[in-house]
């Protein structure tokens, strides 16, 4: 599915300094019943964001009007648990294009890369600095520069570089996806399958 190309993102951010945020929190299973990829952003962090009667919980960060932006900053081990890509879709659909954390769970990270959300893994120290910057000023801007592979807290100039494979970087910069690539090597796959015994 096509997604917005990613180049340089300069944005304020929502802080969520909780560790081990699992994909059941990002989107609970009871909201996985759609057969189309629509409306998942409404249920992003559903049970942290809304009371059982559907009224918003005022103290949850996404309901706090002070915060805004296309970047979500999460605690360590973000996105653990279920492989549901719906979690990444909900993050994207809400309007986020980047998640910053000091550690990501594997499948969530992969799912994000496949749909155009950039997971930026930073050191624990830098993650603390980002949280501190947002605490000092909720409008603090963060610049995520994909071509240069850097993340910068603009108010202080503090910067760190992040890792991404050259292949995935090209995909995100150009809005390509893996299926485009795989479709183009189909004949190679058709040769390979002959070597499989079962």
């Amino acid at each position, binding site marked *: *599915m096509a997604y917005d190309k990613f180049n340089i993102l300069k944005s304020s951010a929502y802080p969520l*300094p*909780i*560790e*081990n945020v*699992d994909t*059941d*929190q990002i989107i*609970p*299973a*009871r909201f*996985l*019943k*759609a*057969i*189309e*990829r629509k409306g998942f952003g409404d249920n992003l962090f559903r*049970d942290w964001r809304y009371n*059982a009667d559907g009224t918003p919980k005022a103290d949850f960060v996404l309901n706090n009007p002070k915060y805004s932006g296309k970047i979500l900053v999460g*605690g*360590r*081990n973000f996105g*653990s*648990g*279920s*492989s*549901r*890509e*719906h979690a*990444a879709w909900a993050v994207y659909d809400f309007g986020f294009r980047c998640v910053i954390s000091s*550690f*990501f*769970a*594997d*499948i969530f990270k*992969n*799912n994000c890369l*496949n*749909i155009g959300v950039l997971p930026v893994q930073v050191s624990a120290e830098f993650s603390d600095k980002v949280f501190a910057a947002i605490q000092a000023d909720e409008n603090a801007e963060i610049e995520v520069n994909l071509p240069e592979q850097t993340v910068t807290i603009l108010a202080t100039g503090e910067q760190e570089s992040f890792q991404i*494979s*050259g*292949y*995935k970087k090209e995909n995100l910069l150009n809005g390509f*996806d*893996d*299926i485009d*690539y*795989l*479709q183009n*090597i*189909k004949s*190679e*796959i058709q040769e*390979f*399958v002959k070597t*499989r*015994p*079962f």
Partner: protein
Amino acid sequence: MAKTLFDKVWDSHVVRNIKDGPDVFFIDRHFIHEVTSPVAFLGLKTRGIDVIYPERTFATADHNTPTINQHLPVKDPLSANQLKALEENSKEYGISHWGLGHEKNGIVHVVGPENGITLPGATIVCGDSHTSTHGAFGAIAFGIGTSEVEMVLSTQCIMQPKPKKMVINVNGQLGLGVTPKDVALYIIAKLTTSGATGYFVEYAGDVFENMTMEGRMTVCNLSIEMGARGGMIAPDQKTFDYIKGRLHTPKGADWDTAMEYWKTLKTDEGAEFDFVYDFDAADIEPMITYGTNPGMGIGISKDIPSAEEVEGGIATYQKSLGYMGFSENDAMIGKKVDYVFIGSCTNGRIEDFRAFASIVKGRKKAAHITAWLVPGSHVVEAAIKEEGLLDIFTAAGFVLREPGCSACLAMNDDKIPAGKYAVSTSNRNFEGRQGPGARTLLASPLVAAAAAVTGVVTDPRELM
């Protein structure tokens, strides 16, 4: 060069290696279910592309199915719609479909092995993180996202960087009442839920060698709960005996050829891992979780640790205990339980119901306990009846339901009410996992049975 089991299977499935990128990785077997496949099929339609090898994909309905009255139309229109989409997509693309009511239907990770779809040396994926279960057979098996489901449908490949390698050795003799589930929960508690992220695990040592195939499946199933993409165990005679003669297992000369290959599937002497753990079986006791991730587990006789004793932030830890309604240093024994759930891809196999029956036999369900006994498949359900376990359950006041994922993720009506405590043989105790506000204590079928008959957290060894 000496290779690990994982290397052997991985390397034989690499179609091409992309410089500074992932491997194009060939998938032998692909399972799909109703929840994570519809958008992938939609993607195929949007792109105007076909399913390349429909005979390599297998569909079963499990995540979102009722566990009572399966002969009646599904009440929830959204769930009914997903089930219909799976059926129609399977039909349109020529994919085998075991829908609700089909004799082969059940939880994907239970029916795959039951029908010989799961084989040693194979690569297996499914849009479900517990696909790691199939590693019990010496397969590389792991969960994928829906974009990848679309990749497999259309090209039988995904793009994966090769994970690092970890071996977890557990040697020695397991004590009374210590099951494969306890071994897994013990390892996860030691490693934490992120301790194996970026790794693929091989389980080795005599504890796993002595384990049944069902037990190995339980262990491999929970690999994802320590962050690993998957876990595997070298196939042995037990593996071959289990798969022989099943529906999709190679037959005749094909079996002989396959056996020659399968016998090579073990880690070579001197092969290197990036990380090695060694545990002693004697240190493991029946386990139970007290918090909101599977790493928050302790021996059942122990007290809940204080915040200073655990890794990670104090705020996160206290939020977790607050959700559970527990305090630091509380004893787990004697905590009141409201619900008991036995089932899921972790502990929904025949051996799990045998274990449950061994405790409840001759006893009665505690009056205030609501118990859901959900077999992993119709095959398991039939075995429960044939072996006389159902009679034991009925005499003790339990009712057997129909197969499905059920209260493990509570997509259907099997939801634990807010604030209630459930001892569950499933795999995740995340906030709200078993229903909004539900509080989950993960444990083995023996611990679940002990709670079901006493109404409180009880050491099963006292009832054995």
